[in-house]
């Protein structure tokens, strides 16, 4: 516990802690809608396809700024989503296969560019390779300030548009019938996912960032049947995973923050899977054994009645 206090008082750790909490919070919130719209893999695709965009942004400007990376990643993420919808529309290929194709080709391009950068003499080349697996410790104050703005923006937008996002997640056809611009709202959600992913890449890396989107949302689903509570819980689960990741990695020198956050979030998922009320495995088993018991008792009492009838004859 002493180390937790140390972490709270050290200004550098404070930034990292705040960054990880914000990241967990906003990807948890936006992840709920991605999960419910059956776009769990979209986050993964976007994260992988962000890599070439980040590399190109770095090659063009030679600086490492989260805002520039955001723009680069946003553009290549957008290209990837257009690619996916183009493939599914004009061929018989289904979206899972289309995602597989687009994800791997963008990622491949990203790795090629990354290798290029590392073997050329860009001044500030160290650190870009950290984007593969992330390094939360490399976050500095200005990065976290950007994250704070982005995160506040996403959370406020999801609060204001909660009704609309809920409607297009449940029944987009009906939403269109009511006159809501479903296409625009869907693009907006996709844009938020891109933003959450790009913000998360520095801390967790391209490969793992999708876990922050999906795992808290899936875990939260085990505890509630209400979307509002699910979104809040998912955000809190994400934030908690961020705290645990930062804490463990700051106390032990050789542990990476991002991957530990992801593992913490996986642990939360396992707990939810086992102990969630009603949906959890344990709850299901209890309900089943109770049902079996009542059935047996019913049968027993019926037998007793039959025996009674028989003896009274």
């Amino acid at each position, binding site marked *: 516990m002493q180390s937790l206090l140390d972490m709270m008082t050290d200004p550098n750790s404070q930034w990292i802690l705040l960054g990880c909490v914000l990241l967990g919070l906003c990807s948890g919130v936006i992840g709920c809608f991605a999960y*419910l719209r059956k776009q769990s893999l979209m986050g993964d695709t976007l994260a992988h396809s962000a890599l070439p965009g980040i590399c190109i942004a770095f090659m063009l400007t030679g600086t490492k700024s989260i805002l520039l990376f955001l723009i680069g990643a946003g553009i290549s993420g957008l290209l990837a989503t257009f690619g996916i919808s183009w493939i599914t529309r004009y061929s018989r290929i289904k979206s899972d296969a289309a995602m597989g194709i687009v994800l791997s080709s963008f990622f491949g391009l990203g790795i090629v560019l990354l290798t290029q950068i590392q073997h050329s003499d860009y001044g500030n080349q160290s650190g870009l390779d950290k984007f593969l697996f992330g390094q939360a410790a490399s976050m500095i104050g200005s990065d976290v300030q950007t994250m704070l703005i982005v995160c506040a923006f996403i959370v406020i937008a999801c609060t204001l548009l909660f009704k*609309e996002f809920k409607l297009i997640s*449940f029944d987009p056809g009906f939403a269109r019938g009511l006159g809501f611009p479903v296409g625009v709202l869907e693009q907006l959600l996709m844009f938020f996912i891109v933003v959450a992913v790009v913000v998360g890449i520095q801390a967790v890396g391209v490969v793992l960032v999708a876990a922050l989107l999906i795992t808290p949302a899936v875990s939260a689903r085990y505890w509630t049947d209400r979307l509002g509570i699910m979104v809040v819980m998912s955000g809190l689960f994400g934030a908690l995973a961020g705290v645990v990741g930062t804490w463990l990695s700051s106390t032990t020198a050789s542990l990476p923050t991002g991957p530990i956050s992801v593992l913490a979030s996986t642990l939360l998922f396992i707990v939810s899977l086992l102990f969630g009320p009603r949906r959890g495995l344990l709850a299901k088993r209890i309900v089943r054994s109770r049902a079996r018991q009542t059935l047996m008792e019913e049968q027993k009492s019926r037998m007793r009645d039959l025996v009674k009838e028989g003896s009274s004859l």
Partner: protein
Amino acid sequence: MSRQLQAAGVPLQINSLSVAYQKKPVLRNVSLEVTEGQLIGIIGPNGAGKSTLIKAALGLIPKLEGSVLVYGKPYNEQRKLIGYVPQRESVDWDFPTNALDVVMMGRYGRLGWFRRPGAKEKAIAMECLAKVGMAELADRQISQLSGGQQQRVFLARALAQDAKLYFMDEPFAGVDAATEKAIIMLLQELKGQGKTVIVVHHDLATVKEYFDSVMLLNIEVQAFGKTEDVFTRSNLQQTYGGRFAFLDRQEDEELTLLSGKGRG
């Protein structure tokens, strides 16, 4: 001008509507003018474009050509007058929400942007749930509802839209006899209030019993008019083609089918 005025009293006017998925036409040159206060059935074989017709009329899918007027104006100006019951299978019923919440979605169009549903919307939604006999299940998680109950929730949501013209995509599909009866009584009530209901329907046996007018559709309109005039053996034969032949084999069975006493 007079034509516009005249059209203002017509709930739905479709002029030479054509729709195509990829290159294949699914609806060709469909025209239709609906009289207010009627129950109208759309009948036809699988792939005849029944659902497509509804979706195109609602503007859910792009049309190749043609126009759709609702009370004399394009449908996007008249959305508040239109209610919609999609096919039950079109949504994931494991969504984290309860029956009351789904019914409240019927009010979202009137609420407009950003505003959250409040006490008033809740009261309206409860009333609509009561009308479909589901008041006591308002708090039930939607995945815990039976198929018939889910269908009733969708119907209640359409009622909450408080529309004048309703489109329903197979509301009777996969529901038990009790629910079917409840639904048809509700449709009759809507009709009694002067509302117009257009229903995609599958069960030929109940057509005569349920609908005032009927449209026989197979890519093109095969026949449209009052049920007793249009719902004839020759028209059905024409609409269903070879697929109707099996009904022909046993004259008795077909007669019961057409008279609406039996169940297909």
